[in-house]
């Protein structure tokens, strides 16, 4: 055994391939780990992104808004829309309102029906309302479509 070790130590020709192999293995391990970390970070970023898309889609699917009543005061050009969140998800906010195909109204002051307090969104089964001044003003006796777009992107349409 001792003779073998001394032979190996004395035999310089064998050292360079061993070192070369060690370096090569270390390099492969290093690059492999780096690739693993990079791939994991990429997949983590992808899953986060895709997860948020799925989560958003799921939330959107759960949104339901019903128009309880739409009242138009032609003397004041004031359209009041009463809504209820009949879905299973809360935090339903109105981001834009389209009257017919006109320019959307995106400044929506939502209020709770029960208290009249201003609210940014409606929870499940909560009722609320908002008022806007449509431009151009509506013609009494003719049909008009009111479309609301929620903050999650769902659209709900009613015809009055």
């Amino acid at each position, binding site marked *: 055994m001792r003779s073998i070790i001394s032979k190996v130590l004395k035999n310089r020709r064998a050292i360079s391939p061993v070192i070369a192999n060690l370096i090569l293995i270390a390099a492969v391990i290093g690059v492999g780990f780096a690739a693993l970390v990079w791939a994991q970070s990429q997949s983590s970023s992808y899953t986060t992104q895709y997860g948020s898309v799925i989560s958003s889609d799921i939330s959107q699917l759960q949104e339901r808004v019903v128009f309880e009543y739409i009242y138009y005061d032609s003397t004041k050009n004031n359209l009041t829309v009463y809504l209820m969140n*009949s879905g299973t998800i809360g935090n339903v906010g109105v981001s834009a309102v389209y009257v017919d195909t006109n320019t959307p109204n995106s400044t929506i002051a939502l209020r709770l029906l029960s208290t009249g307090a201003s609210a940014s969104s409606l929870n499940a089964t909560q009722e609320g309302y908002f008022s806007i001044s449509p431009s151009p003003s509506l013609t009494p006796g003719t049909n008009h479509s009111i479309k609301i777009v929620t903050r999650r992107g769902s659209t709900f349409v009613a015809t009055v």
Partner: protein
Amino acid sequence: MLPRFRHRKTRRRLISDSRGFSSIVGAIFAVLVMFSLISTVFVWSLSQNTLYNNTVRQSNQADLDRSSEKVQVLNTTYNAYSNGNVTVSAQIQNNGPSSIQFITAWLYVSNASWNNYNWCKLTNASVQGGSVFTLNVNLTVSGLNSTYTHSFASWLITARGNVVSLQRTIVYGNNIIVSQTTQGIGSISMDFKQSRYYDFGSGYVSNGTSLPSSKNSYTIPNSNNTILAVLLTNYDNTTQDIILNANSYLWIITPQAGTVKPAAWNIANVTNGKYINSFSTQTLQYGKPTIVYFGPSSPSFASSALPTVVPVFILLFGKIGTNDFGQNIPFIAFYISS
């Protein structure tokens, strides 16, 4: 050489030859990386897919539950009181399989010149499938004068988001509830209290002339141009709108002059308080009291016949759906002053 010895030699050569290790380690790493990534993403995406499918299923179930709500409303009555209070009563039969919770009741009241609405939250308004629920709610509608005729409409909102309409009803002043159809005398009825006329004097009434202040009187001048206004309500039993055309008149005759001298006011177009000299049609919506204008014209009877009392006939002609509609309302008398 025997195959057994050949294999042993190959294995020994492979073990002794260290030049292939890095490739093997690299390959193992590659496999590990791929396996861990693919399995993680696969399991995760599977869970996301399950989550999404569950949500879709729940959402479909909610839609199904909502569409399976079947409600029949019977015996809707409205009672209006002097302070603007209105009592809405109805029998609500749940014909669906699942229970229904009503959360809000709405009431809309209108007449020809006024409208308003209100709502109230309903508590303990849950109806089991197949059961009957007696609705009895009190709402206050500001500005409601119970002595006038009004049209009442009411509807309920369910927790699942359905809107259940109650029967619309016309309630005459002092709470005289009329049937939906005056089958004996025609589909259109007139509110006597709301009859009025607009006196333009003896001058010509041009297009776009604003109406002067109205006069609630059955005495009209003989020589002045007047526009006459009557409040009509369509009670058609098929609840269709009636469209009046230009062949509608307000017509009077006098028996005083020896010969029957008629005078007629054509149906007129008054828009935003101004007389428009072109008339196309006027729609009488079902249940909605609507002011119909006639004129401008004047009786212009011979002075020898004046003053006199004349019968007034409101001759209405047009369409109801695709059919002709014609009705004469003969219940008014005018006193023509000299």
